[in-house]
């Protein structure tokens, strides 16, 4: 598996020669366009644009820009839903199968602005039908800033939890008589993690957080440390562990290591950190079908200031075969 | 074999040909073929056994009892009488009649059965009495055991489908605990979605069709004429034999009995008793009326009959012409007039009208209860 962090302006030179289809996700975030604006449309014939029916209006302008940029291509819409994972899975299957049936084999996937759940469902599709595909290249645009313009103590990305559910395709093997081990890759939103913990009431709780230098701001690293301490004061079986948020394979290994400490438990993993680490949770689940992935659907996003695009992106492949 | 022009078979056949979406697509099963295969299997191996096997079970029961110590002669004789039921036909002819009746109910109604529902109903018709091979008592609860013994290549390995057929078939009779509401107790949604099988409707159609299938095709004229029927079962066979016509019209049903002088004057064995055929007709048609009211609950709004008309005519001895002066008894069984209060009062209608300890609420109970409650 390779993983390269590059300047976005150098993207073209790091892409494989052979790409049939480009998959991207239209969103309210400006970052959704970064890769599309920096990759030559000549490279591929098909463009699959994921559009979230629940966020369609807030992302409409960006959606129209995508359609305009790729007007000469065969555009396939992937109408996903933030509320209904069934609609999302069907849309993923339909749109990709459509491209495959027309001859597409190798895909370039911009993972940046997919919701975590949609991204996981997409990865599951690739994993399940990997033999139908040629080369799969993944991209992720980093952000220069989150919660743009807000003071550290006022930063937010999303609010409220509409629903907590298992991710479609990753039900795990939750046995009624076993103890539960909840593993949370903690990100920015400790309150959402708290809600998840309240819902699951696990026997064992493992909180993962990235090293200080990978945190959005030093203040957030401190907040996460404080949150962990608070949990440890409240609950009796809380463990901390570290994972590399910008390395999917590394995240996978960290999760596996944590799981091995408590064999014979029902393992539920929720990635609340970077998309790359969320991909790591999927890799862990592919190797170990006992893992259930859980997703807490936010009620509302910080539409106006979620993020600002950075100057770097990640190019990587994944061990899906 | 059920003819191709039977409404239900035609519905199924067309549904398969049109690849109707109601038919499950798993395993590329041809549901018409599956029905015919099961029909052939049961016809060849099971249906013809039901009557004889039920009798054999009764004999086994008597044998077992006779081998016990301290069983008195009186007890043994009573058990022999109780277990001397020679069932009317429960074989292929009866199944064909039930299917025919069910098809007519569907035709005269407005249920728009899907092809899959037609399949399920046809299968349930075939399986509803197979449990009799293990004996009459609780035969409807033994359907699953028979199904489990059939090769999955014949019956299919879709557990849910087999379960659905067995449950619908079993609801045609019997009780759950002391409760005869077997259709209401079916573990399926009372208001199913558009793609779901209407289990309660199909169970009610089967149950009512079974009631309407108790006609002369179930009786053996030869056995009756040669006095071969066991005493305790005589009236059941006469009843069946004398029911000459069942006509299902739009909104009403007609049952026509033909009896002659000899039949009307004689009493027939019914268990340990002796009864007139006319009295048996009254009892059985009243039961039919109650079944009608019960099944209508689940058949509404798709199928509705407002009336069952019973006609009884007296014929000459060989039934070639009506007797003169004519004796014609006709009556309608329908909901009419103001409903009568049940003898048990409101507690009969509302068994839930009880307090926390399960005692019926009455004025006296309330007075006793509030006496212990502190005033504001």
């Amino acid at each position: 598996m390779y993983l390269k962090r590059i300047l976005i302006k150098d993207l073209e030179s790091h892409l494989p020669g052979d790409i049939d289809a480009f998959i991207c996700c239209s969103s309210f975030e400006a970052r959704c366009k970064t890769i599309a604006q920096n990759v030559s449309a000549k490279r591929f014939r098909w463009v699959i644009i994921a559009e979230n029916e629940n966020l369609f209006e807030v992302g409409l302008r960006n959606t129209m820009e995508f359609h305009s940029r790729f007007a000469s291509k065969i555009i396939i819409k992937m109408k996903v839903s933030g509320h209904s994972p069934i609609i999302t899975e069907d849309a993923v299957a339909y749109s990709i199968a459509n491209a495959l049936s027309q001859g597409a084999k190798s895909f370039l996937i911009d993972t940046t602005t997919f919701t975590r759940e949609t991204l996981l469902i997409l990865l599951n599709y690739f994993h399940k039908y990997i033999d139908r595909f040629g080369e799969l290249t993944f991209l992720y645009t980093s952000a220069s800033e989150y919660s743009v313009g807000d003071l550290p103590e006022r930063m937010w990305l999303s609010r409220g939890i509409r629903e907590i559910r298992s991710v479609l395709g990753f039900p795990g093997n939750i046995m009624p008589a076993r103890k539960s081990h909840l593993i949370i890759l903690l990100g920015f939103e400790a309150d959402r993690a708290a809600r998840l913990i309240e819902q699951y009431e696990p026997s064992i709780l493992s909180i993962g957080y990235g090293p200080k230098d990978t945190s959005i701001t030093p203040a957030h690293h401190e907040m996460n440390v404080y949150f962990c301490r608070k949990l440890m004061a409240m609950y009796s079986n809380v463990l901390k562990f570290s994972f590399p948020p910008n390395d999917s394979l590394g995240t996978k290994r960290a999760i596996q290591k944590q799981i091995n400490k408590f064999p014979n438990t029902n393992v539920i993993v929720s990635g609340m950190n970077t998309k790359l680490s969320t991909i790591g949770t999927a890799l862990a689940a592919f190797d170990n079908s006992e893992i259930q992935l859980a997703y807490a659907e936010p009620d509302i996003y910080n539409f106006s200031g979620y993020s600002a695009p950075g100057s770097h992106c990640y190019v990587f492949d994944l061990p899906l075969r | 074999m059920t003819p191709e022009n039977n409404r239900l078979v035609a519905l199924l056949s067309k549904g398969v040909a049109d690849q109707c979406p109601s038919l499950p697509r798993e395993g590329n099963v041809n549901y018409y073929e599956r029905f015919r295969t099961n029909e052939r299997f049961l016809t060849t191996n099971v249906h013809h056994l039901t009557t004889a096997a039920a009798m054999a079970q009764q004999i086994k029961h008597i044998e077992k009892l006779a081998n016990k110590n301290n069983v008195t002669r009186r007890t043994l004789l009573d058990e022999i009488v109780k277990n001397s039921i020679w069932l009317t036909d429960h074989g292929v002819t009866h199944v064909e009649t039930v299917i025919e009746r069910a098809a007519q109910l569907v035709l005269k109604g407005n249920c728009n059965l899907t092809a899959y529902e037609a399949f399920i109903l046809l299968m349930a018709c075939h399986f509803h009495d197979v449990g009799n091979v293990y004996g009459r008592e609780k035969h409807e609860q033994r359907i699953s055991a028979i199904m489990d013994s059939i090769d999955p290549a014949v019956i299919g390995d879709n557990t849910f489908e087999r379960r659905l057929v067995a449950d619908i078939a079993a609801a045609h009779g019997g009780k759950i605990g002391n409760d005869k509401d077997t259709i209401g107790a079916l573990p399926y949604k009372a208001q199913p979605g558009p793609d779901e099988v209407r289990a309660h409707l199909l169970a009610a159609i089967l149950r009512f069709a079974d009631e309407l299938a108790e006609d002369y095709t179930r009786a053996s004229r030869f056995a009756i004429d040669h006095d071969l029927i066991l005493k305790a079962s005589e009236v059941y066979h006469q009843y069946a034999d004398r029911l000459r016509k069942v006509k299902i019209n739009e909104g009403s049903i007609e049952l026509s009995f033909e009896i002659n002088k000899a039949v009307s004057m004689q009493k027939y064995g019914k268990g340990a008793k002796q009864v007139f055929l006319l009295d048996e007709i009254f009892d059985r048609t009243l039961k039919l009326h109650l079944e009608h009211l019960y099944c209508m609950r689940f058949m509404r709004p798709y199928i509705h009959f407002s009336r069952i008309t019973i006609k009884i005519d007296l014929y000459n001895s060989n039934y070639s012409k009506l007797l003169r002066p004519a004796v014609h008894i006709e009556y309608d069984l329908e909901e009419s007039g103001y409903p009568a209060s049940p003898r048990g009062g409101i507690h009969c209608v509302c068994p839930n009208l009880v307090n926390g300890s399960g005692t019926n609420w009455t004025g006296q109970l309330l007075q006793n209860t509030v006496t212990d409650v502190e005033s504001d």
Partner: protein
Amino acid sequence: MTKTVKIRNPFSVQTPEEITAKDAVSLFVDVFTDFPRIPHRGHTFVHGPRGCGKSMMFRYLQPDCQCLAHSCDIAELPFFAIYAPIKNTNLSLTELIRLKDLNLDTMLNEHFLTLYLAVRAFAATEPLEIPDKPQDRQSVRDFVEKHFLVLLRRCGSSLTHSTTPNMSVQQLFAFALRLCEELYSEVIMFLKTFSSSAPSAFKGPLCGYLDFLYPMLRQMRKLPFMPDGPIFLMLDDADNLNKTQTVILNSWVSTRTTSDVSLKISTQLNYKTYRTLAGTTIATPHDYSEVNIATVYTSSRNRYQERVREIVRKRLSLAGIESTPESFFPPDREQEEEIDRIAETLKREWGTRGRGYRPSDDVVRYARPNYIASLKGTRKAGSKYSYAGFEQLVHVSSGLVRCFLEPASQMFAGQVSHNGGKPVKSISPNLQNDVARDESNNLLFEEFDKLASEEGHENEYYTRVKQLSNLVRSLGGTFHQILISNRSERRVISIALSEEPTPEIAAVLKLGVQQGYFHASSLGNKEGTGRTPLYILTRRLAPSFTLDPFGFAGYLFVTNGFLRDAMSSPDVVKRIRETGVDSYFDSGQLELFK
């Protein structure tokens, strides 16, 4: 070299499942005099918000705790309780949504739920000291071979497993448990591979309550070491079942099986429906009895206080801390002395200026409110009302034990840190007050505060949350204004609705109850024509609005107009402050409880 000894936090929250029987029995305070129906035969719903003690009750009812508590064998117990926690994604897997509106939906959900409970039933035997004599082994073998396996086969199982002759009792139960787990896994595998575009047939057995679970449990009851009494199936947090599973469970409740099996179902007031498969509705009392823990403890504060005192006393004792709850959580001495001085003044002046029937009435009604009012306007740093003190903290927890224990746990951790690791004998009033205020502010601001910046991107739920936020702040502010006014009754923290609420208002109030900001109750109206809905603001917010947490004797009658204003903006408080409470609310609106 000094040895660092880790100090055990006596208030740390363990999920009741994790607590050993010994600890559970030590910690448990008998609440069944408050809820007598729960440990008796009959289906029961136990409602209450998170943290009110439902799971702890269920833990205590389990046979290992009961045997320890009553020093007896299993056979001597009055019932055998099987605990079945329904966690968020145990049973309501997302994959099940694919079955919606398909024929298999009901059957497979029932099969899944049935197997889940069957596994829990066998798992319940693991921690028990079940005799393993030859006759016990034979009974259990007969149960497994002649009932359990037969029932499974009748449900369509083609498993050919059988027991081996020298299996012990525990091994036999483990064998049955593993079989059920195998079938449970099969369902998950089926769901994983199920596709709407190419649906596969389910080929496994289909077990239900009436054809498998109930007859199995009935036979299990007859085992020689089992009690004569019924089996309790305790489903904890049944809100987490999906809609189909909820309907199925209701159908089970409607069956008359309580002589053998009683269902004890806890909910967090979010139970999806009471409809059954037949389309009817289960109802109390004929199908089940019902207990709302929050209602009992909100309406009977003395009982709750006693319960918490006992819980805290036990926890301190278990941790080796020789303090009473009151001395462990001392109040702010200076504040209490000042309040006592005010009380003395009120008693002295009652003869000339008193309002209540007795001097003590005036003390209760006015001492603390007068003190709080006296703090208003003072510029002294730190001159804020303190919520320290065991009694105050109990009141602030608002009938939810967890809302006492969680802050207490933080207070303890803070005090340990402050003490430099030395043993803790009490929590400083300042620390108590800080934590109580933090908790209150978290409850108030967590979800609400930052939403204000997101105008224009609203969905229905978001709008309702915002309205609830405004309503809570409006009412909190209003109650504070009443508290510091000169009215005869100032300790008001409830509203009564003087008219039928509009659907919008009803939805916001319902959300408030669900989220724990209000507790719903009712009053008999004067006309005798029915009951008036009453909404009591949670005392957990008392620190945010500087309210007197010690009890309440009044409620404010409000109209839809007032509620609409309050929901649209907390500015109503400004208007009340400017106009004065007396002018804003006419005399009929502020009423006393009898």
